[in-house]
């Protein structure tokens, strides 16, 4: 099966070190080697058909497509994961402190860690959020911080996503689909389960309810069926057992939010909103938005409803703010960052700008407020005309650009067009903050660029996903004896809502 698999290139391959198999993939290689290619193809076809039947899709320009799920899982060792988990917890904590600070006292500016204008010039900075203090102090209820693995195999933070990160539904559905497609292989592994995510999220949302509400009503707010992530919104609402509402289902009266039911209006206390800030409330943001509900921001300010994630979080996603994160972590937590950033030039700084303009053809240029791979220019692959256009844009508005060296994302064997080949991947782990603890979903969304050599993994640009297996025990038998004494990573139960059953039952 794996004969003729050529890694080559500077990128780190997660399965093979040259011709040498890396230990975490030992069991997978052994079990897949017993399978013939035609049999694997049959299973791939069954996998795709099951995704279409279940309607596991995403939308591009109004067209519904099945999410491409590669049959080969990606494996992450227990020890590697422990570091990632720690790094993400640290980063979310720092982001929480940063957001609380920039929308209130502003100590981080006064102490010279972060220039005030970096925040106030960010297109995602919303004055409307100033001095809103969330009930349990949490603004980043859910985060999806993107990680990549550099040429040495070290995980690095590529960008922060603390607005409305999406993709977690595919983590849950792909685990189910892969266990149906590769039952023999999955039986050979001990993998940390992912199915408890909805309960964790619900517990965090309930914990964030306005003060004095004993049994809060939680809802998921979706832009509607034509939104690209609509499938995810339905899955989360269903698995949490809460209503999925659209803006038109909500009404604000006297600073309280209610939903229209067959029996009249019913109060709403926590809104897990999957609508962007700009569309949330026509009173404060875009007046033409039909997706939100007039009065939401005022209700949140009055403390009668909690919006999760909080309004204004987008400043932390700004790629220029990202460049300050290592300092921000040191400033608030007095710790070194566990996971390093990718090296980045700030085009807003004159010396950096000069160097970037000189080396435009060898760097990656990213707009600071872009998402979904939009606007990114990869220097070595751009034409002269594209570079000239880019040069003009950067000179005109340097604040809006950062530059990074071309990082070869790591590769993982992927089954495309009937054969295995190395394809570039990133990783979006999801973290849920309930106010007491930041819980990280073991695994997360591995996005894979299906085109050969392609570096942009977004599903809107032809990317697919992979099931991500975090091993629950040590990788090789030798290590196993060595670490037998060590206690295993056992998760403490959810504290905020102990009355909720926490099970790792199958999520369908």
């Amino acid at each position: 099966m794996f004969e003729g698999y050529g890694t080559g290139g500077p990128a780190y391959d997660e399965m093979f070190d040259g011709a040498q198999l890396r230990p975490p993939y030992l069991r997978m290689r052994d079990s897949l080697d017993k399978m013939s290619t035609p049999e694997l193809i049959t299973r791939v076809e069954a996998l795709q058909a099951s995704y279409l039947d279940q309607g596991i899709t995403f939308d591009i320009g109004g067209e519904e497509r099945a999410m491409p799920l590669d049959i080969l899982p990606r494996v992450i060792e227990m020890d590697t994961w422990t570091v990632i988990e720690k790094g993400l917890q640290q980063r979310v904590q720092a982001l929480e402190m940063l957001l609380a600070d920039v929308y209130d006292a502003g100590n981080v500016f006064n102490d010279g860690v972060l220039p005030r204008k970096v925040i106030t010039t960010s297109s995602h900075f919303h004055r409307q959020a100033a001095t809103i203090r969330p009930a349990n102090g949490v603004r980043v209820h859910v985060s999806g911080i993107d990680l990549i693995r550099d040429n040495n195999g070290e995980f690095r933070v590529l960008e922060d996503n603390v607005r409305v990160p999406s993709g977690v539904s595919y983590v849950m559905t792909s685990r189910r689909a892969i266990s149906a497609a590769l039952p023999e292989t999955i039986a050979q592994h001990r993998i940390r389960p992912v199915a408890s995510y909805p309960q964790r999220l619900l517990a965090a949302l309930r914990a964030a309810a306005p003060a004095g509400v004993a049994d809060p009503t939680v809802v998921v707010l979706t832009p509607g069926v034509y939104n690209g992530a609509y499938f995810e919104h339905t899955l989360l609402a269903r698995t949490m057992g809460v209503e999925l509402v659209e803006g038109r289902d909500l009404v604000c009266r006297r600073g309280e939010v209610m939903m229209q039911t067959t029996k009249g209006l019913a109060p709403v206390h926590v809104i897990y909103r999957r609508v962007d800030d700009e569309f949330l409330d026509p009173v404060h943001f875009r007046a033409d938005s039909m997706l939100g509900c007039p009065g939401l921001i005022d209700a949140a300010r009055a403390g009668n409803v909690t919006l999760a994630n909080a309004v204004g979080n987008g400043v932390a996603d700004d790629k220029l703010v990202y460049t300050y994160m290592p300092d921000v972590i040191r400033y608030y937590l007095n710790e070194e960052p566990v996971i390093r950033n990718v090296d980045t030039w700030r085009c807003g700084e004159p010396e950096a700008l000069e160097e970037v303009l000189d080396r435009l053809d060898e760097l990656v240029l990213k707009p600071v407020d872009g998402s979904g791979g939009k606007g990114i220019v990869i220097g070595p692959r751009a034409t002269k005309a594209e570079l000239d256009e880019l040069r003009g844009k950067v000179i005109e508005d340097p604040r809006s650009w950062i530059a990074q060296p071309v990082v070869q994302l790591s590769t993982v064997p992927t089954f495309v067009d009937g054969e295995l080949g190395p394809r570039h991947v990133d990783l979006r782990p999801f973290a849920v903050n309930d106010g007491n603890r930041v819980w990280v979903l073991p695994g997360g969304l591995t996005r894979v660029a299906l085109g050969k050599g392609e570096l942009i993994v977004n599903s809107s640009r032809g990317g697919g996903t992979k099931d991500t297996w975090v091993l629950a025990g040590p990788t090789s038998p030798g290590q196993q004896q060595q670490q037998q004494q060590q206690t295993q990573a056992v998760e403490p139960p959810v504290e905020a809502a102990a009355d909720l059953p926490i099970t790792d039952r199958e999520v369908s």
Partner: protein
Amino acid sequence: MLSRIAESLFWIGRYIERADDTARILDVHTQLLLEDAGVDETQTCRDLLSCMGIEPDDAAKAGVDLDAVTIDQVLRLLAYDPQSSCSIAAIFAAARESARGARETLTVPMWEVINTTWRPIPSGHFEALRPPYVFQWVRERAALITGTADATMTRDEGWQFIVLGRNIERADMTSRLLATTALSNGAGQWTSALRASGAYDAFLRTYRGIETDRAAAEFLLLDRLFPRSVIFALNRAEQALDNLGGDPRRAGFQDEAHRLIGRMRAELEYRALTDLVADLPDEMERLQRTCAAATDAISRRYFAGAEAVAWKGVGV
């Protein structure tokens, strides 16, 4: 339950029933045309289109000349063409669109069975199915969806809305089957109508083998035990409205839809059969108008959240 979700469920009930019944009506008439050379194809097709609510304008827009309409054109308008809003293809697509908007409320098996019913339509597999197999396929899919709903849904408000939608639609569509059959001039058209409703054997047993047109019309219209009869469907719709309203009163009914349907049912039951069958198509059109008015009343009360509030005097 959210008003928007309740509305989607109501329409899922209606659409699935409508697809089922459209297939049954088409089945009767394609069979009649095949079996009986004496039947006037153009006339039958014209009656069929008008009973199914396709106006001459709609037909003209779809390029169909009513003076020379063929059964193939009828099949296109009522079965295969997704652009024609009365076609089975369009109805299944609408059911799936409603289900998509209420997906988090539907059970997983329910969503999947509706989704897999829709998938052959964009993929072209549906169009490849020809009569009479296509009608059988539609009936089977509808039975599968209804059965899945029955086996997996909790009997809450949502269920009542599905049942309500299904039965209002069934009363409406059975009345259309009765009207088209009465208009048709072929021999044995009532036998076909009974067969299409799956009622033929039950009918023969009930009436001890005496097969008259009058008896067949009575069975499909007024039988209290046969589940596809108009009366049975109206009774079920009343029950569902009763469960939803949940407001026991000593006198009369407060709910507008309940009143409309109850009055229609009483009228059908207490009028002489001779009067009813004398002008069946007109009587049935009246029933269809009642169903439409009842649907409006239900929408006003349950689906327009804002109005319900004003009416109850809560908030503001």
